[in-house]
């Protein structure tokens, strides 16, 4: 047997030296590579430094010609401000108005595709704290793209947020008009409902598990504007609620918000048969209100749905008016039932 080959062994010394050398090499060329991988964009003519609604400093290039929106409510707001043609990209879930569906999609709000966003060369990306991740915002920023985030926690903040966006994007006039009109309507609503008792409602975000809405959200505030008060008082934004507690408190109305009324009907029918749920007076007495998805979006249409909810809860305050002339576009067909309606 040719047994003259010496023991093949990887000597420990050279291996350690190799590993150390690799590490040193890595740390040395790191700055060089890092320098190359900085943001690669042409520097814009003017920069406007603003603080966004989450307290971050954002350097917005002026003028803003290309916008990517990462949330449906932001897309709606942009269109409402007349900036629809500046929107170059939005999410898969941006469905209002109809033109939003034809824009380039960058994915979902929680995990949008960075490459798509980068390829659209936006001047500004809009995000909102309620739906988007901080990590996403940071990743986009690292590419040298400005990201402005909103965080409205009340109806008034929805309006002021819209104003601020208008100012940022050079649409102050339009924003002022839109917001003034909305404020007027809200004031009129407040006057109409003054002196009345707020109705106790349970806003149902999700059924299994039962999730409602917390007191610091714009939704809770919207309920207040509509002459209602949420039966659950929670600090969390989307609290898991105990059905027992709800049954004990017996809210006067159940409120849902969805653009798929058929599905909601189906669900409500199923809930009637469930133990616990069927003990709810609101369910038995058909005091159920289904609003459109717009009620869950902090955008101009929110006011429409607040008005609808107010009508449904306090019909006696609206008796003098003509029942029609809702300001919502035809696409929305909000379904609501007054106490004697059939669902």
């Amino acid at each position, binding site marked *: 047997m040719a047994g003259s*080959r010496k023991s093949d*062994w990887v000597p420990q010394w050279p291996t350690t030296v190799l590993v150390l050398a690799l590490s040193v090499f890595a740390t040395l060329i790191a700055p060089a590579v890092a320098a190359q991988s900085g943001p690669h964009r042409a520097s814009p003519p003017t920069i406007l430094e603003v603080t966004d609604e989450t307290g971050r400093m954002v350097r917005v290039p002026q003028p803003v010609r290309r916008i990517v929106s990462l949330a449906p409510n932001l897309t709606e707001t942009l269109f409402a401000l007349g900036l629809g043609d500046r929107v170059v990209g939005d999410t898969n879930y941006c469905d209002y108005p109809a033109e939003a569906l034809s824009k380039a999609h960058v994915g979902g709000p929680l995990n949008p595709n960075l490459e798509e966003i980068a390829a659209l060369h936006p001047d500004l990306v809009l995000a909102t704290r309620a739906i988007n991740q901080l990590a996403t915002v940071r990743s986009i920023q690292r590419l040298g793209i400005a990201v402005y985030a909103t965080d409205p926690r009340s109806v008034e903040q929805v309006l002021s947020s819209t104003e601020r966006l208008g100012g940022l994007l050079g649409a102050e006039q339009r924003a002022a008009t839109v917001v003034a009109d909305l404020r007027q309507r809200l004031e009129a609503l407040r006057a109409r409902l003054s002196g009345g008792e707020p109705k106790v409602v349970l806003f149902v975000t999700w059924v299994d598990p039962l999730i409602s809405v917390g007191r610091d959200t714009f939704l809770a505030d919207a309920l207040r504007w509509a002459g209602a008060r949420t039966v659950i008082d929670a600090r969390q934004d989307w609290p898991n609620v105990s059905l027992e507690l709800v049954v004990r408190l017996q809210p006067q109305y159940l409120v849902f918000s969805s653009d798929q009324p058929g599905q909601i009907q189906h669900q409500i029918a199923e809930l009637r048969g469930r133990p616990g749920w069927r003990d709810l007076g609101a369910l038995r007495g058909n005091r159920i209100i289904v609003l459109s998805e717009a009620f869950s979006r902090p955008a101009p249409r929110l006011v429409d749905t607040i008005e609808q909810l107010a009508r449904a809860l306090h019909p006696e305050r609206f008796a003098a008016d003509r029942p029609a002339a809702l300001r919502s576009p035809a696409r929305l067909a909000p379904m609501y039932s007054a106490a004697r309606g059939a669902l």
Partner: protein
Amino acid sequence: MSAPDTDRAKGEATGQSAPDAMRVNVEQASYAYTKRGHEASMFTLEATTFQARERELVAILGPNASGKSTLLRLVAGDLAPLSGRVELDGFETSRLDARTRAQRIAIVQQESPLVFPLRAGDYVLQGRHPHGRSLWFESDADFTIAANALAQVGAEHLRDRWMHEISGGEKQRVVLARALAQQPLVLLLDEPTLHLDIGAQVELLARLRRLAGENRYTVIVVTHELGLAAEFADQIVLLHRGKCLRVGTPAAVYQRELLEQVFEAPLEVETGPEGRPRVLIQGRR
């Protein structure tokens, strides 16, 4: 530690067998197992003395729980004696580091189950580990030694077979081959005949006897098989409940009263040809 190598070299150079050197020296060695925190010991092996030379097969004999395995672990250096000394070629065995010990002492015990499939050849090759370094790959010399080890136990045909597919007896041989691949000076075996049938038992002991002579090993076997020990051992260390009752040749140790006391069985001792004792069982009295 070069003493044993030069002995062997000396023997080979002069062409005549050097006088068999004393390898293992156990002098008044004792041990006690204590449970942590308790003063009283759970089991004590009392002071024991014996020596083992090259080419000698020693049997540590006794019934269960007599302290045989404890004594073996003392010889292996796994345990340090509470009193007395256990030496290998003049060095305190338990003070040597694991690697040095593994280069000189090979132990055959009940094997642990394998987690991943392993071929017999690779298993035997593991015996070369004490002679290598970390991060090493085996050399041709190592492969040769492993192959020879398999040949010495008559298991070359098992080289490419999977360990979990071979029979108990075949596995025994492979485990022994691994011990041989270590090229040890001392071979320790703990109850190697436990699951073997009588034919395999005799074959194993005969092989050990032969290897001790050919490779100049010191073989120390722990067993409770009276017949095998008598037939194959040069020296017997008789243990009973932690005490060493007698050390000597089989003829000297196999006294009827002594054996009956130790093994608590009705026995009769005869002398066979070549002066080796034979033990007979008195079934009905």
